Every structure is written in structure tokens, then in C-alpha cells.
């Protein structure tokens, strides 16, 4: 049963930020609510004020340009999935969105809400971290920007202060000879992923890995960069033993828990396999373009 709350509907972003300042500590922001309403129903979250930003069109946009890509926080998953511009320039984003929850959830749920919810098994964060995304956080009196990988602090905890709102995600341009691959393991399609792996590889002119990112979902309290795995890749050629070693490293350095869905050991094995598999796929994609 959801506890009663006071409902606030700001006319624009500035008013929303003013409300957040006024009710700091007593308010939660709702956008699509696809995650928040579940927590409220379970009684885990019971705010006194709910500030609704779902209708704020000024935060709903997908803007690719020469400097990269900017996505407004209230942009729905479905808009990202269907964006032709993203399919062309950041195809991994629609590819990831296609398997995020269900169509109904993607129609109403938003990227800003997903990231702010900070479920370590969420799909978008690892992909965006692999792409080097930043987030813009706004308060009534100013904004700050930080790397998305620094935004997540713990299970369902972010760097957002009580009076702060995630307003934009920015992604730098993707360098040439870069491939990105993402896969999550689920029992049935619409389930939350048990573990996911995202690998991004940028090759040098000789076909060796110049830069690599390995980002794991559902394998730690936050989305996790497997830096040990990244290190073994740099400067190397693609070969079977390298894939094995990167998978093994990632499996060692992650910090998964055991729960009803999977044991810790099972998750580590998934990390090993998925990292290896995504590394091969990302590398092949990088070699093709």
C-alpha cells in the first residue's frame, strides 16, 4: 500500500528545483515512476512530497552534434530505442534499450529516472559508462557535472544531494575503430538482468587495443569498471588467451552477492563468460568500423 504524500507539479525545471530546495529531505522526484512506484508500494520509500517532472518537455530531447550527444533526463527509453540518429551514431544505446524491461515500461520510464534509481543491475548505466558519459546535476543555484561512473555510490545510492536533480546525460563522440557490445543474462526476457557485461574497445591503426572499457552490471553494489580486465587488453592483439584472461580478471575483481536469483559463484561465472563474449563482439565491431 502506497503511503499518502503531497503531490507537486512544477511548471518548469526552475520551479521543480525550487520545490526540491524548499522540501529537501522530505521530497522525492518522480518521472516515469517505473522503479519508484514499486519501492513506494513496498513501503521502502515514503516521501512526504512527490515532485512530478514527467511532463517537463524541456528535459525531453536527444541531441547529437559534433561535440557528442546530449540526452535530457525525461527522455523515455522508447524514444532512445527508436531514435534513428542514435541507431546511426551510437547504435549500442538503442540495442541496449530494445531489451530493457518491456515495451510498456520503456514507453513511460525515463533515462534520468533509471539512472537516479541506481539499481546496480540496471541496463543503461554500464553502457553509458563504457561510452564515457557524464551527468549534469542541477540545483536551484547552479549545476555541476561528473562522470557517470562516479555518480553511483552504493546500492540505490547516488551522488545526488537532497536538493539536486539529474537533468542531462552527455556522451562524447565515439572515436574511429571503436566497437561496443552489451549483453545481459536473464531468466526470461522482461526480467531484470542478473549480470550484464559491456565492453568497449578502440583499436589503434595496427589493430591492437588502444583503449578498453569493461563495465559490469549486477556484479557489485554499483555498476563496476573491471579495471584489471581493461589493463590486460591495452596494447594487445585479439587472441583467445587474451579473452580468457580478461574474463578471468573481471570475474575475480567483481563483488557480486548471492540472492534468490543467483549465487555469488554463479554471478562470477556469468561475468567471466559474458566479458569474454562481449570482448570478442566489441573487437569484431571495432575492426569493421
Amino acid at each position, binding site marked *: 500500500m*502506497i*503511503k*499518502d*504524500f*503531497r*503531490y507537486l*507539479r512544477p511548471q518548469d525545471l526552475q520551479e521543480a528545483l525550487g520545490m526540491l530546495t524548499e522540501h529537501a529531505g522530505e521530497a522525492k522526484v*518522480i518521472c516515469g*515512476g*517505473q522503479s519508484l*512506484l*514499486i519501492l*513506494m*508500494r513496498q513501503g521502502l520509500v*515514503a516521501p*512526504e512530497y*512527490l515532485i*512530478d517532472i*514527467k*511532463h517537463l518537455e524541456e528535459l525531453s530531447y536527444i541531441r547529437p552534434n559534433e561535440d557528442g550527444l546530449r540526452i535530457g533526463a525525461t527522455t523515455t527509453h*522508447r524514444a532512445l530505442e527508436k531514435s534513428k540518429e542514435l541507431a546511426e551514431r551510437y547504435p549500442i544505446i538503442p540495442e541496449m534499450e530494445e531489451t530493457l*524491461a*518491456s*515495451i*510498456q*515500461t520503456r*514507453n*513511460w520510464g525515463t533515462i534520468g529516472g533509471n539512472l537516479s534509481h541506481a539499481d546496480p543491475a540496471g541496463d543503461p548505466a554500464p553502457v553509458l559508462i563504457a561510452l564515457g558519459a557524464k551527468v549534469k546535476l542541477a540545483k536551484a543555484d547552479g549545476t555541476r557535472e561528473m562522470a557517470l561512473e562516479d555518480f553511483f555510490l552504493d546500492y540505490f545510492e547516488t551522488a545526488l544531494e537532497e536538493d539536486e536533480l539529474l537533468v542531462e546525460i552527455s556522451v562524447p563522440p565515439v572515436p574511429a575503430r571503436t566497437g561496443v557490445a552489451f549483453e545481459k543474462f536473464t531468466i526470461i*526476457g*522482461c526480467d531484470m538482468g542478473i549480470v550484464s557485461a559491456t565492453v568497449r574497445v578502440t583499436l589503434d591503426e595496427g589493430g591492437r587495443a588502444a583503449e578498453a572499457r569493461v563495465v559490469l552490471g549486477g556484479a557489485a553494489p554499483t555498476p563496476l569498471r573491471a579495471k584489471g580486465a581493461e589493463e590486460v587488453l591495452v596494447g594487445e592483439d585479439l587472441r583467445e588467451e587474451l579473452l580468457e584472461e580478461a574474463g578471468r580478471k573481471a570475474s575475480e575483481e567483481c563483488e557480486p552477492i548471492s540472492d534468490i536469483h543467483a549465487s555469488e559463484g554463479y554471478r562470477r561465472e556469468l561475468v567471466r563468460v559474458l566479458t569474454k563474449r562481449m570482448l570478442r563482439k566489441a573487437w569484431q565491431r571495432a575492426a569493421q568500423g
Partner: protein
Amino acid sequence: MKEGTMAEMHRLKIRVNGEDYELYVKPKTLLVEVIRDHLGLTGTKRGCNSGACGACTVILNGMAVKSCSVLALQADGAEVLTVEGLAKGSELHPLQKAFLDHGAYQCGFCTSGMLMSAKALLDENPSPTKEEIKEGIHGNLCRCTGYNSIVRAIAAVAEGKYEEAER
């Protein structure tokens, strides 16, 4: 909310199946509660009540959503189509006819949500492939394992076997 604080009621204007409604609801009211409990349209089912099963699927401003996971006040000013709005008078919607002909249900609990997801799919993509149909009903669980007949029913409509003047 602090002890003793009453939740204020908010006005909700909503168009459901072409009818305009104006009602007063508590902020915590969900769209499925307005549809079922306030308007008495009980064709929309409340299944898992947590966004997993899809039985409560309705079409909100042209998009399939899970009405258990949308605050009613977020649908203020919106247009909603529920399963009751599919038929034209006594003339069933092509999807409804096809579901009957193909035995695309057993207990029927998932059916209204399935129909609404199928409607949203065909509105967006009138000739889906079998794979696209499966993706279109991805968010709807059937526990009688009737998926094959459901996919066949939707495919039959997509193939034009249930033409009518206005779908």
C-alpha cells in the same frame, strides 16, 4: 507523511474510451485504480500490481503502458483506451474476433492486456513479422501458456483476415 496530515484530493480530467471524466483522487491513486475502482471498467486486470505481468496494460495517449505503474495524476488531460473501448457497439474488434477464433486464451486473465499490447503493436506496425509480434507482447505474461495461439491470432489480423472498415 507526518501523522495526522491528510492527503489533499486533486482533480483529474481524463478521457477514457471516448468519454470525458472529471474526478477527485488522492495523489497516490494509480491509473489502474481509477479505471477499475472509480470508473468501474473492470476489463483491465490487476495482476502482479508491480509492473511485471502486463495484465493491466492500457493505451495511454497512443502508447501501451502498465496502468498499475502510472500515477493517475500523470494521466491528467490524457486519452486512455481500455479493452472496453475496442468493440464498436456489439461489433467486436478484429483482434477480439481473432482471439476467439484462435482460442487465444484459457483463463482469460491476461487477455485484455494482451489485446491492448497487440492493438498498440498493430497501430505502430500494421504488418509485423512473427518475431515482432512476440516482441510486441513481450511485456504480457500468460500463465496458461497460450502464447502460440495468441501470436497466431495477432498474425491473422495483421494478414488482413479480419478486415473491417475502421480498425
